[in-house]
């Protein structure tokens, strides 16, 4: 779901639901339960003449489920996740099976001679009921599998076409088999009432729904998962009304109510998916816009920097050239003025050294203040930084942990610069981690004393990690993987640490994410020998 650059596609299947989505889902569920309670007492009343409405219902279900499948397929085309592909197959299969279900429903198409055997409709319904939760379970199981990110675009299209054909073929073949079969399980005693055997179908379905709910709950992370859970809840309620409260009798109040609630909530889910897709689209457009702005502002900053460097360098150059010219003019006189020319040449030499000083100064630009070195308690420095970055971490829903060695000796250096280094590393880690889904978002800061009398500070994150090809480049100036990054942070941090006599490097964690580590020499020997005693 995340590529190596740490980009997360803003998709329903990848981003976690926000609070308002969770609240909406809760409301939908609550309304369904209330409706269930209200309808329950009347559910056994039969509404015999309502059979023709069945076609309208079937058309609506077909419409909603096929549309949902299409929406999921479009998600798949972007995200290339097997799980989403499987889920869309489930919706498509369920939607397509509604057609033979309605066509074979007893008493509806009798006039056209389409009335198949008594058991056909029930058999189709059973397949439909039981297959959907299986697809959902498959979705949940495949969710954390690697995406098919490497598939080229053309083959994605082929996959979609193949899946649609396969599912349509499966639905048609199944229907054909059921209609042609001589022996079908006896689900119905007559056109309206179920046989004892049918009892296993809703029981099995509810069992599957509940397993699906539990699995989704355990592995929940995206908006799509949230709404799938709502769908499963709805299906449980639907089955409860259809098969238990309605006594299993077709065309009873309970039977109809269950179907209509199911349809209403399925439409609701479809609407939510559609509106969320539109919202995400808008958000994407906005983020592209802001990225463009950030790039522009970075360019402006670079222009400002290069202007200031140009100014600094042209200053001694100007005086050098002017002095040399003056010297030439002194020599060019009728009686050459040697003393003045000599003075001018001496100034040229001085300017040359000055130009070198300017170049050195630019290199030192990011090492300003290194002279003011004092004893620094790295632990309290880290605590300071963490206190200040707490808000950002909360915003990115990242939990920041620290594991600080209480007996850490002091370091020597510029507290301001070292603080800057830590806050750079922590900010990078929080940025990298806040994009993560599917695993805990953790940033951990550890201080240790090494046997070599060096303080070791590690900043670990559970982010996407850093691609091997980028490991060296991230320390280069103006290189950044962040859209609003100046590409200065790591370069600055490394030069600060090195000017303090330490080292800064990056490692991969065993599982995922990156570890930035740096070392600093201890300021006093007593601290070091203390630790030696401890070891």
């Amino acid at each position, binding site marked *: 779901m995340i590529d190596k650059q740490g980009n997360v596609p803003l998709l329903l299947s990848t981003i976690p639901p926000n609070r308002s989505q969770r609240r909406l889902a809760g409301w939908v569920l609550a309304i369904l339960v209330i409706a269930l309670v209200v309808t329950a007492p009347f559910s056994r009343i039969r509404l015999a003449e309502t059979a023709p409405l069945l076609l309208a219902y079937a058309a609506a279900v077909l419409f909603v489920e096929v549309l949902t499948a299409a929406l999921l397929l479009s998600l798949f085309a972007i995200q290339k996740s097997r799980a989403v592909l499987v889920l869309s197959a489930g919706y498509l299969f369920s939607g397509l099976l509604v057609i033979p279900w309605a066509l074979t429903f007893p008493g509806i198409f009798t006039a056209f001679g389409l009335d198949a055997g008594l058991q056909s409709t029930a058999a189709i319904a059973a397949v439909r009921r039981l297959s959907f939760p299986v697809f959902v379970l498959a979705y949940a199981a495949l969710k954390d599998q690697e995406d098919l990110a490497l598939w080229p675009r053309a083959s994605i299209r082929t996959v979609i076409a193949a899946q649609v054909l396969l599912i349509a073929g499966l639905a048609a073949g199944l229907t054909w088999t059921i209609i042609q079969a001589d022996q079908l399980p006896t689900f119905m005693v007559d056109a309206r009432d179920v046989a004892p055997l049918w009892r296993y179908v809703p029981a099995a379905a509810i069992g599957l729904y509940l397993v699906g709910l539990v699995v989704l709950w355990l592995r929940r992370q995206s908006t799509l998962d949230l709404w799938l859970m709502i769908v499963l809840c709805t299906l449980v309620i639907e089955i409860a009304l259809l098969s238990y409260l309605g006594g299993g009798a077709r065309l009873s109040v309970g039977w109809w109510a269950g179907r209509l609630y199911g349809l209403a909530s399925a439409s609701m889910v479809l609407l939510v998916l559609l509106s969320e897709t539109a919202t995400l689209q808008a958000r994407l457009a906005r983020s592209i816009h802001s990225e463009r702005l950030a790039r522009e502002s970075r360019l402006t900053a670079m222009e400002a920097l290069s202007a200031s460097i140009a100014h600094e360098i*042209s200053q001694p150059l100007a005086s050098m050239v002017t002095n040399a010219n*003056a010297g030439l003019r002194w020599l060019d006189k009728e009686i050459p003025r040697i003393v003045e020319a000599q003075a001018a040449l001496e100034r040229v030499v001085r300017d040359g050294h000055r130009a070198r000083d300017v170049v050195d100064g630019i290199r030192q630009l990011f090492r300003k203040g290194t002279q003011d070195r004092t004893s620094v308690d790295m632990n309290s420095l880290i605590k300071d930084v963490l206190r200040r970055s707490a808000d950002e971490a909360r915003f990115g829903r990242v939990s920041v942990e620290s594991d600080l060695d209480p007996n850490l000796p002091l370091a020597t250096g510029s507290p301001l610069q070292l603080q800057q280094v830590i806050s750079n590393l922590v900010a990078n880690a929080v940025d990298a981690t806040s994009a993560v889904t599917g695993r805990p978002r953790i940033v951990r800061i550890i201080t240790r004393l090494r046997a070599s009398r060096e303080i070791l500070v590690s900043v670990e994150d559970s982010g996407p990690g850093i691609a091997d090809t980028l490991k060296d480049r991230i320390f280069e100036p103006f290189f950044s993987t962040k859209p609003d990054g100046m590409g200065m942070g790591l370069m600055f941090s490394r030069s600060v640490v090195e000017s303090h006599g330490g080292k800064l490097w990056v490692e991969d964690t065993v599982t995922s994410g990156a570890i930035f580590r740096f070392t600093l020499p201890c300021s006093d020997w007593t601290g070091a020998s203390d630790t030696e005693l401890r070891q």
Partner: protein
Amino acid sequence: MTRDQSIVFIVDDDVYVREAIEDLFRSVGHDVQAFGTTDAFLQAPRVDLPGCLILDVRLPNTSGLEFQREQAESGFHLPTVFITGHGDIPMSVAAMKAGAIEFLTKPFRDQDLLDAVHRGIALDRRRRTELAILAGMKERYASLTSREREIMDLVVAGQINKQIAGELGLSEMTVKVHRAQVMRKMNAKSLPELVRIADHLSSATTRA
């Protein structure tokens, strides 16, 4: 020769650049005064000679461009040549619009700077000569009596003695006497010359 004397002012916060330019102008025989800031330049007693100012754009406190603008508003007319370590087109346009002689980017060619400064000095000299002439005219005009000024205004406006006499209720003879007095005092040899002098005076007063 007093007539050929001139002075070059340099304002640059970089002491080395300042020194170098100072020496360059000395080597071609100019008098130079160099300052680190515009304030120091303003506070120093000014030699009353035709001159030109070499002004760095980037200065502490007020930038060269701001200084030029402020001074232009308060009627300061020293021709200015800008030098800058990093110049862009909008910057140079702004400077030229505000009346700069030249806008040079460091490191510049010495001849460019010398030429620009010489142009500035020539301009300042011409302006000073004009100012001196105008000051003389003003002085002479001030020596006129109020009656003579009245008559001068009417003469310049194209009225003949008879009309002036009628308007002011004087005899034509009296007007003639006053008129001769005006011509003498204003050092005008002919009527057109008097008209030109009056023109100068009035345009100088409207400008101020």
